[in-house]
C-alpha cells in the first residue's frame, strides 16, 4: 500500500442555503519518497484538497491514511508550505524556523534547536539574513524561509500549496531548482504533494503529474508518470519529447473541462510555444484562438 492514501474524499462548503460541492470522490495514492504534482485551474479546489491532506479541513466523507494509519487532525509527519508564505511577522527568519523545530523536537535544548534552524536557513542561502524580520525580506526570500521552516522539522511528508505562484518568473525558476536540490539532498526521502497551476514547474519537480478537473465537484484524473532523468533544467524540458508529450496530454485533458467554451482545443505542436503554461482559462482560450 502506498505511503499516502486518499480514499474517496468529498468536501462541500455551505453558507446559508447555497451548498458548493468542491471536491467529489478524490482518490490519490503516493508512494514513499515520491514527488507528485496536482495540476489544475485556479479555483478548482486544489487548495481545499491540500488543506484536507494537511488536516486543516476535515473531509465530509472519505479517508486520508498516512503509513497505513488513518489521519485525524493534523498529521505529525507533515510540513506545509503555503502560497502566501505565512511567516509570523513578529519573529525573525531564524525564530520562525526555530519555532517549527521547537514544535517538532520539543526534547532538544535551545542550542540544538537554534543550530538546526540555522543549518536549514543556510541551506536555502539565507544564513546572513537570519535575524531579519519577514517584512525586511523580499517575496522570494520569505518563501525560502518558509521552505527552510518546512524542511527543518525533518518531515516525512511535505505539502506545497502553489508555493511559487506569488513570485516573479526569475525568482520562481531559482526557487524551483533549489527545491529540487533540497528534496534530493535530505537524508531520508520526503514524500511530497505539490499543488500548482504551472505545468512546467510540475514537469521540473515531479515523479508524477495528476491533472485535477475543474470544480465544482473537482476530482483527480489518472496520474501521468514523468520519467525524465534528474537533474532537470528548464531549457532541457523545452526540447524534451517526453515532456512535450506530457504537456499536451495534460493541457488537452484540462481544456476538455473548460465549461465556458464548446470548442475543442487545437492539437498542440510539440511543446515549444507553450513553454510557460499557466493553466488559467485565459491561456487555454488564447491557445485555441
Amino acid at each position, binding site marked *: 500500500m502506498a505511503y499516502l492514501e486518499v480514499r474517496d474524499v468529498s468536501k462541500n462548503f455551505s453558507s446559508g442555503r447555497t451548498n458548493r460541492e468542491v471536491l467529489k470522490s478524490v482518490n490519490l495514492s503516493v508512494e514513499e519518497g515520491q514527488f507528485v504534482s496536482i495540476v489544475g485551474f485556479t479555483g478548482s479546489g486544489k487548495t481545499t484538497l491540500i488543506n484536507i491532506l*494537511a*488536516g*486543516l479541513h476535515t473531509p465530509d466523507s472519505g479517508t486520508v491514511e498516512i503509513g497505513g494509519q488513518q489521519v485525524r487532525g*493534523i498529521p*505529525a509527519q*507533515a*510540513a*506545509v508550505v*503555503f502560497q*502566501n508564505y*505565512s*511567516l*509570523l*511577522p*513578529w*519573529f525573525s527568519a531564524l525564530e520562525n524556523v526555530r*519555532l*517549527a523545530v*521547537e*514544535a*517538532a523536537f520539543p526534547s532538544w535544548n535551545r542550542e540544538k534547536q537554534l543550530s538546526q534552524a540555522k543549518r536549514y536557513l543556510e541551506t536555502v542561502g539565507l544564513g546572513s539574513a537570519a535575524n531579519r524580520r519577514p517584512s525586511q525580506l523580499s517575496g522570494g526570500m520569505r518563501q525560502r524561509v518558509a521552505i527552510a521552516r518546512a524542511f527543518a*522539522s525533518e518531515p516525512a511528508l511535505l505539502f506545497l500549496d502553489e508555493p511559487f505562484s506569488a513570485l516573479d518568473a526569475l525568482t520562481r525558476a531559482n526557487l524551483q531548482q533549489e527545491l529540487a536540490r533540497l528534496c534530493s539532498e535530505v537524508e531520508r526521502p520526503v514524500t511530497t504533494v505539490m499543488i500548482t497551476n504551472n505545468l512546467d514547474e510540475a514537469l521540473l519537480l515531479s515523479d508524477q503529474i495528476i491533472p485535477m478537473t475543474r470544480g465544482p465537484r473537482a476530482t483527480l484524473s489518472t496520474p501521468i508518470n514523468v520519467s525524465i532523468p534528474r537533474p532537470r533544467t528548464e531549457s532541457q524540458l523545452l526540447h524534451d519529447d517526453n515532456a512535450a508529450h506530457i504537456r499536451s496530454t495534460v493541457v488537452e485533458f484540462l481544456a476538455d473541462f473548460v465549461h465556458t467554451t464548446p470548442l475543442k482545443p487545437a492539437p498542440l505542436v510539440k511543446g515549444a510555444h507553450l513553454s510557460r503554461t499557466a493553466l488559467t482559462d485565459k491561456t487555454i482560450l488564447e491557445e485555441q484562438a
Partner: protein
Amino acid sequence: MRSRVVSIVLPVCGALLVVGLWAAVSTQVHDLPSPLRTWTESKVYILQPLEKRGEMDQGILLLAYYSLWRVAKGFLLGILIGTPLGFMLGLSRTFHRMFDPIVQVLRPISPLAWLPLGLIVFQKSEPAALFTIALCSMWPTVINTMSGVRSIPQEYRNVARVLRLSRFQTFSKVLVPATLPYMFTGYRLSLGIAWLVIVASEMLTGTPGIGGFLWQEYNSLIYAHIVLCILTIGIVGFLLDRMMGFVELKLQRSN
C-alpha cells in the same frame, strides 16, 4: 525649517488666543480668576512643586504624583482584569454569548455611580477609588483585546495548527503577539479614562491629590487654584497619552 517654525509658532498663537479669550471673559464674570490672578495666586504651587505644607496644601507635582500613583494602581488592576477577559471573549464563542451583553451594559456606567458602591463594599476611600478606576477604565482594554483576537488572520492560526504548537505555544507565540497592537490601543484608551476617573473619585472621597485639592479649594473659595488644577490635569493627561502613543507606535513598527 519653515515647517519647523510653523509647527511651533501656530500652536503658541492658538494658546495665546485662548488665554486672551479667557482674560476677556474674566473681566465680565466676577468670580472667574483672570490669567494673571491665577498665576500670582498659584505660583507658589508651581515654583515649589515638591513642597509639603500640609495634608492638602502641597506643591503641584506632589499632588499630581499622588493622583498618578493612584491611577497607576487602578489602571494596572483594570488591565489585569480586562486583558484576560478580552482574550476569553475573543477566543470562546460560548463565553462571548454569555458575557458580552453584561459587558455592554456595564460599560457606559459613570464613575460617579460606581464610587458609592465601592465605598459601601470596601468601607474605605482608597480601595473604593481603585475599584472605581479599575472598573471604569478596563472596558477599552476588554473591547480592543477582544476584537484583536478576533481579527487574527486565519493564516497565522493555520501556521500554529500545522506546526502542531501546544496550546501554550499557540497562545504565547501567535495569539499574544498578533493581538499586542490592539491591546496597547486599549491600554492607551484605558489610561485616558483612568485619568478622567481619578478626579471624580478624589473629589468624592476627599483624598489628597489633584482632584481632592481642586474640590477643597472650591470649598475654600480660592478659585484660582481650580484653574491651576484643571490645567495640570490637562497637561498630565496629554503627557500620559503621548507616552502610551509612543509605546503603541514602537509596537506597531516592530510588527
